[in-house]
């Protein structure tokens, strides 16, 4: 899409005549993208439902539960295994260390409540925390998600800002075992 059209779309979104319908359309589009792109698979804690493990939608997109303290990476069994996940599917251990999925709800202190669309877009484009910080770790599929269009990212962010806020402070990543061992020397 060329820049002129992008500017026109941006200007349209600012005009009051387009605003109300635009928001609803954005939220619906964002919800569609979030639910079809697998965001709940990792950012919503799993629990054991009647048919087996499933996302606990009462904690939708709130990330790794802070009550679930993980202090060490697990020891993997012999064989070709390189990664492990908790039963919540919100903490993942691999050669990168242990990563914890982020709280994507609009809670201002522990989620995206203070983020702007620019922060969100920059985060997905650069693969860096808060758009400018540490690298976001696997299994977050940044190499694929950075291909979302600006319009798609705006819709996703608008939807995420509309969902219930959940206060949940996600822990920082744990370093890889090798690096941690060297750091302790």
């Amino acid at each position, binding site marked *: 899409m060329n820049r002129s059209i992008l500017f026109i779309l941006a200007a349209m979104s600012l*005009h009051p005549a387009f605003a109300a319908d635009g928001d609803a359309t954005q939220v619906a589009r964002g919800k569609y993208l979030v639910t079809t792109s697998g965001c709940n698979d990792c950012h919503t804690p799993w629990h054991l439902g009647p048919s087996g493990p499933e996302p606990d939608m009462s904690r939708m997109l709130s990330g790794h539960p802070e009550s679930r303290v993980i202090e060490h990476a697990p020891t993997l069994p012999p064989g070709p295994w390189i990664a492990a996940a908790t039963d919540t599917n919100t903490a993942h251990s691999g050669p990168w260390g242990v990563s914890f999925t982020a709280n994507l709800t609009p809670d201002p202190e522990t989620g995206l409540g203070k983020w702007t669309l620019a922060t969100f877009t920059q985060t997905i484009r650069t693969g860096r925390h808060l758009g400018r910080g540490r690298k976001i770790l696997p299994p977050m599929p940044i190499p694929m998600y950075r291909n979302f269009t600006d319009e798609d990212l705006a819709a996703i962010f608008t939807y995420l800002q509309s969902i219930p806020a959940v206060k949940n402070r996600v822990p*920082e990543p744990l370093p890889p075992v090798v690096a941690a061992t060297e750091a302790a020397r």
Partner: protein
Amino acid sequence: MPNPVWFLTVAAAAALASAHAADAPLPVHLGDTGLYAAGSSTQIDPRNLAFSPQYPLWSDGAAKRRWIYLPPGTAIDASRPDAWEFPNGTRLWKEFALDRPVETRFIERLADGTWRYATYIWNEEGTDATLAPADGTTLRGSYAVPAEFDCRACHEGAASPVLGFSALQLSADRDPLAPHADARTDIDLQTLIARGLIKNVPSALAGARPRIEASSGIERAALGYLHGNCGHCHNSNGTPVPVELTLAQSVVDGAAGTEHVLRSMIDAGGRFRPHGASAAARLVTPGNPDTSVLITRVRSRNPQTQMPPIGTRLIDAEALALLERWIAQKSSSTAEELKP
């Protein structure tokens, strides 16, 4: 029905967008960016002014040289003293050298007002530097050449994308305790004003030598270091990261500005909580650097913990010692004094 003004706004925006396409692509060779005199790869074009900020960015010990070019007849608009507006056509270069020049970074303001960023990697002979890949690269096994989006990450968070060329950084009142400061050049705030290269300087600043209003020399240098190394992401007047931390100083606000910076750090909780730390962990705990999260992060080069997160792989020992000394000297009554 949208009104005519709205359509005019859209039309102007579209025209602005198309102007971007008129700019030539980045030169492949550094020599073609205008840094050097014609026919030379070492002699700087005399139209480019050498400068040195008093609070330089730590770059793992690399020696740095910097130059700015302003198109003839133009001047920097300083009506917002903490956010200088540079004319279209402005160019800046920063050369990084270890035992020899390694890379030269280049930023340029284009005809449509946007900025572009690039870096050029020097050959071993020092005879030519060529455009680096836009997604960055690593030299000598550990020296990181930034990706284009890493350039934007730092430069586009601040109030002005030009980070080291500002009223505070070019003040003639240089901080004697500032870590890693290079020798000053003949370019400072007053000489720029005198040469007509800055316009619209507020009268209060026209004859000033801005400095950080701190309670001690140690504090002045510590806050200056945080300004130069962290303020481009942690500020109140640019596009900061969404955490409540202000480390960028203001030449307008004086002591009130310093107090604002201190209040955002002293006894302040933060989003980042190190593993094993309690909920009571504070960014800066007066008198106790070892429990201050700021020190934990500056002391770390674990990529998931370190601050700054980009552009450094080695701890800045001199600055770390300065920050530790500053926090150790801070009185525990400071937090009370800073309460609104």
